[in-house]
């Protein structure tokens, strides 16, 4: 090699190294900036600005595939233009570029889109955009988005080096974007979890905090929702020399059921104030619930009024699992009088019945989450087991019997997860 050639070679080498150094510093700059921010939008914003700066283009854009509806491509889009230009990418051009990249999963470099064979532009479409460099954002082989740069400045063309640089930026950005998305997803889930916790607290406060203490009577109640919140409701309301009590079960589970449960509670409490008989209370709860719920949502509901001076319970059963009264000698009476479930039909006139409560009698009101407790073989705890438990342990206190029934259902279900809300209300006359 002569001296002149050597100088030329060295010059080229220096140029190449300088270019590499530049690329490295660009990447370093992006990496540093990205790692200092975690918000998805900020990250994308930053990538777009760095592309404009380092590729020396008029515009750049990052578009992300919507994760939830991947068939509707590229919903998220952040586009920035250099201050001196404010040109927009025509929609049709944009969709053709994305279509091409989604199909080919490789970079697209077009320096004169008017003459490019891949696209059939009409002149008006392409009037503002001359050159395009687009690179897919790939994660595990799938396109998660696209980075595009439009119009190299000073009428320059995009080069293979530009393509290489943008590809490296894309590779680095993909992982960061995926991470940021995961983080956002996690934040949303955490927020949802917090909301659920709050909802559960609200619901606990809707249920009575204290069980009424009545001379001669022993009362206990419990509600164990299957999820954070549930659709079962029970209540006790003191009214003169009486205790109005109820137990209801809303169709479904979770938040939708919990919302209706709150509605039922407010409705019931207001109607107890207005009406004096349990059939009138139930009749108006039905009308009000019917008017404020979807046609396929209903509540099974049992309400009773305990007259503890005269030892009588007047009750109305709106399609709820029949409560059982067990007397000292083990005799059982089921409480079925009433009408259909609440909330599906207007104009129902509910009926009521009155039963006498003797010393030692126990009334057990329960939701189907008790009897429908399932074991791993898919068998149900069932009415018979419940009845037998009540009869066998009828001498326990209300709280003792309640605990026993819950334990029995838990033993029965074993490892099987609780699938429905369990609620129990027990009233026992002690003297």
């Amino acid at each position, binding site marked *: 090699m002569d001296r002149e050639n050597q100088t030329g070679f060295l010059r080229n080498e220096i140029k190449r190294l300088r270019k590499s150094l530049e690329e490295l510093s660009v990447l370093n700059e992006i990496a540093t900036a990205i790692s200092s921010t975690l918000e998805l939008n900020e990250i994308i914003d930053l990538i777009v600005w760095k592309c404009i700066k380092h590729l020396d283009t008029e515009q750049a854009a990052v578009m992300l595939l919507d994760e939830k509806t991947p068939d509707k491509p590229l919903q998220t889009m952040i586009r920035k233009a250099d201050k001196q230009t404010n040109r927009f990418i025509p929609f049709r051009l944009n969709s053709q570029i994305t279509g091409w990249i989604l199909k080919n999963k490789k970079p697209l470099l077009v320096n004169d889109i008017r003459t490019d064979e891949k696209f059939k532009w009409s002149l008006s479409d392409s009037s503002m955009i001359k050159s395009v460099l687009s690179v897919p954002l790939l994660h595990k082989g799938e396109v998660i988005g696209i980075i595009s740069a439009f119009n190299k400045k000073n009428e320059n063309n995009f080069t293979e080096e530009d393509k290489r640089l943008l590809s490296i930026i894309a590779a680095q950005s993909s992982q960061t974007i995926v991470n940021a998305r995961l983080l956002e997803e996690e934040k949303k889930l955490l927020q949802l979890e917090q909301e659920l916790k709050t909802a559960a607290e609200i619901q606990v406060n809707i249920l009575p905090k204290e069980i009424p203490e009545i001379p001669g009577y022993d009362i206990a109640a419990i509600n164990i929702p299957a999820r954070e919140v549930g659709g079962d409701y029970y209540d006790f309301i003191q009214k003169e020399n009486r205790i109005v009590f109820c137990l209801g079960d809303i*169709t*479904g589970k979770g938040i939708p059921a919990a919302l209706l449960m709150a509605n039922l509670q407010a409705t019931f409490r207001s109607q107890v104030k207005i009406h004096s008989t349990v059939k009138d209370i139930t009749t108006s709860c039905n009308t009000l619930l019917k008017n404020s719920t979807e*046609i396929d949502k209903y509540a099974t509901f049992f309400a009773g009024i305990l007259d503890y001076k005269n030892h009588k319970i007047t009750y109305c059963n709106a*399609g709820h*699992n029949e409560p059982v009264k067990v007397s000292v000698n083990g005799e059982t009476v089921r409480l079925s009088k009433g*009408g*259909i479930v609440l909330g*599906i039909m207007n104009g129902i006139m509910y009926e009521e019945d009155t039963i006498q409560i003797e010393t030692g009698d126990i009334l057990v009101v329960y939701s*189907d989450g008790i009897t429908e407790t399932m074991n791993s073989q898919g068998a149900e705890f069932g009415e018979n087991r419940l009845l037998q438990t009540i009869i066998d342990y009828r001498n326990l206190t209300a709280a003792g019997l309640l605990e026993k029934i819950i334990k029995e259902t838990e033993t029965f279900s074993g490892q099987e997860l609780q699938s429905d809300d369990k609620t129990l209300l027990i009233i026992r006359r002690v003297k």
Partner: protein
Amino acid sequence: MKFKVSEKYGAVIFSIKGKLLGGSETNDFNETIRKYLKEGKKNIVVDLSGVSYVNSTGMGMLIRNYTTVANEGGKLKLAEINERMRGLLSITKLNQIFEIYDSVDEAVGSFRQTAEA
């Protein structure tokens, strides 16, 4: 759940198979019923012989369709319900609302009797 539709003596029979759990899987069922109502076919029989399980939201779906049909001046009747479902209809007292028949033929026949009467 899955369902098949057939017609007999002017009644439309919906034969349901599987678990009746309500929710979004019933949309198709609801829409098919509406389609027949639009055609003026308002005698509906729901054959539940193939239903292995029903919960309260599944009942909700039957109630919804019962109401839809009734609002159009028609009637939705149930046929061949299993023990569990009979129990559920009895507890909820929805057996006061739904007409229940032991066989699909009886349910179909009941429409003819009403028409002749």
